[in-house]
């Protein structure tokens, strides 16, 4: 009988990329700008993606882990990540220098349903490292400003030093076509010029048309409950409230099972879920 011919496309095979730029955003979070060594590659890596998708970053000898893409597809060619040093893989990543290699697979995940958001007011609420995936959608919306209604971005951090993309948001605050509110829980150095208090305290500034608003939240697990309550208070429907979740993932393709919640694979059915999903799948948040 005939010999079997294997095609070479293997979605587990990481693709080589180079660190173009890196700098520290906070004490333990670093920004990485990465470019694929072969930009024409479309499989298993493709350079087009949607806001809210993630990639598997692979470092040989250590392993792989998922990281949300923090850059916007409207500025193509580069992938950006915000990475907090928490484990073996991220510690290794922090040892890398500009021009060093790392390996990528993806993009994976559903991403934000941008097409459903067109024409709507957008309300973003970010806490801590949650700013990473939201920045992707925010920059996308700003680059395509006329596609959306009002734009509100609320961002909370523990202290001014812990605020990701602080300078970038200071700049963005100048823009007239979009409202950006920043708050910190504590201000030990006493030079914070904006709001103080938890992120939900910023809801007083929000003026959107609730029936025509897409609300997006990402942050530490404890934050969701309070922020979602505020969305509901505003009158935003469950199906228009989006959250992006974190889980352990080894494959990114709905196979390894480690991100499963109920019958959802966070890596392919998520990481973006609506409040409706969350109400129907126990254990998502």
């Amino acid at each position, binding site marked *: 009988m005939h010999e079997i011919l294997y095609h070479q496309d293997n979605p587990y095979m990481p693709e080589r990329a180079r660190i173009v730029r890196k700098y520290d955003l906070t004490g333990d979070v670093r920004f990485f700008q990465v470019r694929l060594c072969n930009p024409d590659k479309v499989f298993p890596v493709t350079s087009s993606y949607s806001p809210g998708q993630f990639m598997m970053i692979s470092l040989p*000898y*250590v392993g792989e882990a998922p990281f949300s893409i923090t850059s916007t597809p409207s500025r193509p060619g580069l992938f950006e990540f915000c990475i907090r040093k928490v484990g*073996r893989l991220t510690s*290794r990543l922090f040892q890398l220098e500009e021009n060093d290699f790392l390996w990528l697979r993806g993009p994976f995940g559903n991403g934000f349903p941008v097409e459903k958001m067109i024409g709507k007011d957008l309300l973003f609420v970010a806490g801590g490292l949650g700013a990473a995936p939201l920045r992707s959608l925010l920059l996308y919306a700003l680059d395509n400003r006329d596609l959306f209604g009002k734009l509100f971005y609320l961002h909370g951090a523990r202290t001014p030093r812990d605020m990701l993309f602080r300078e970038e948001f200071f700049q963005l605050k100048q823009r007239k076509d979009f409202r950006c509110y920043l708050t910190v829980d504590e201000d030990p150095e006493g030079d914070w010029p904006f709001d103080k208090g938890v992120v939900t305290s910023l809801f007083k500034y929000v003026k959107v048309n609730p029936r025509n608003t897409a609300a997006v939240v990402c942050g530490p697990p404890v934050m969701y409950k309070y922020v979602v309550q505020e969305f509901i208070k505003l009158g935003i429907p469950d199906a228009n409230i989006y959250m992006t979740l974190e889980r352990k993932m080894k494959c990114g393709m709905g196979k390894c099972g480690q991100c499963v919640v109920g019958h959802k694979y966070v890596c392919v059915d998520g990481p973006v879920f609506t409040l409706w999903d969350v109400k129907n799948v126990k254990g998502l948040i």
Partner: protein
Amino acid sequence: MKKPKIGIYGLTGCAGDQLNILNCEDELLKLFDIFEIKSFVMASSAADEEASLDVAFVEGSVSTEKDLEDLKEIRKKSKILVAMGHCAVFGGVQSMFVGEDWDKMYRKVYGKKRAVTLTKPLPPKPLAAYVKVDAVLPGCPIEKEPFLKLAGLLAKGVIPRHPDFPVCAECKWKENECLLLRGEMCMGPLTNSGCGAICPSLGIPCIGCWGPIEKENWEAEAFLLRERGFSVEDIVNRFAIFGGMERADKLRKFLEAKEE
């Protein structure tokens, strides 16, 4: 790239782990080629104890004041400290009753007069009871393959992480019949993987020599073994051999509760 400098040391133990490194006969040259070995007294008397180390492998438990001094010294000069073998990782068989009145136990073995020793004895404890341990290689003794894999990653500058799931997984991969179902006193569900389920594959129940996994369900195991007709004493004795300090302590409480 400069060769990583390593040292291989033994505290109180049988030296079986160091011996198993020497038993890696085919790979020994490779090992000596990749690493610059600064101290390995079991293999060579030419040791350089002044040198700072990239990696120190330490076997044995801390059972004397001399052990403790040596360990602190090793820790100070090493970037990465690897606890190697059950004694170093969990305290070894000698630590099974550490929670009890240790002086009484000591007298029981050595008599009323203090035996002549070079250094003051201490209740045996694992390295992590005294110093920061960066990586572990369990086993009594360690196995060749896991050692070579650990050493390989260390040579690449990666700190290895031992998986934490029971040996039952490896046992099933080898398509063994479950010895607990056959009524044997098998410690598999409590014991970390890594050995490749050597004993159960030969029909010999696991005695737990790779040490416990974290948050193992020893209550359920004890319940099951009681159902299978084993006496509390037998179960406790088997548990205690490789259970390490913590579990020995839990077991004592378990025993006390049973006696009430």
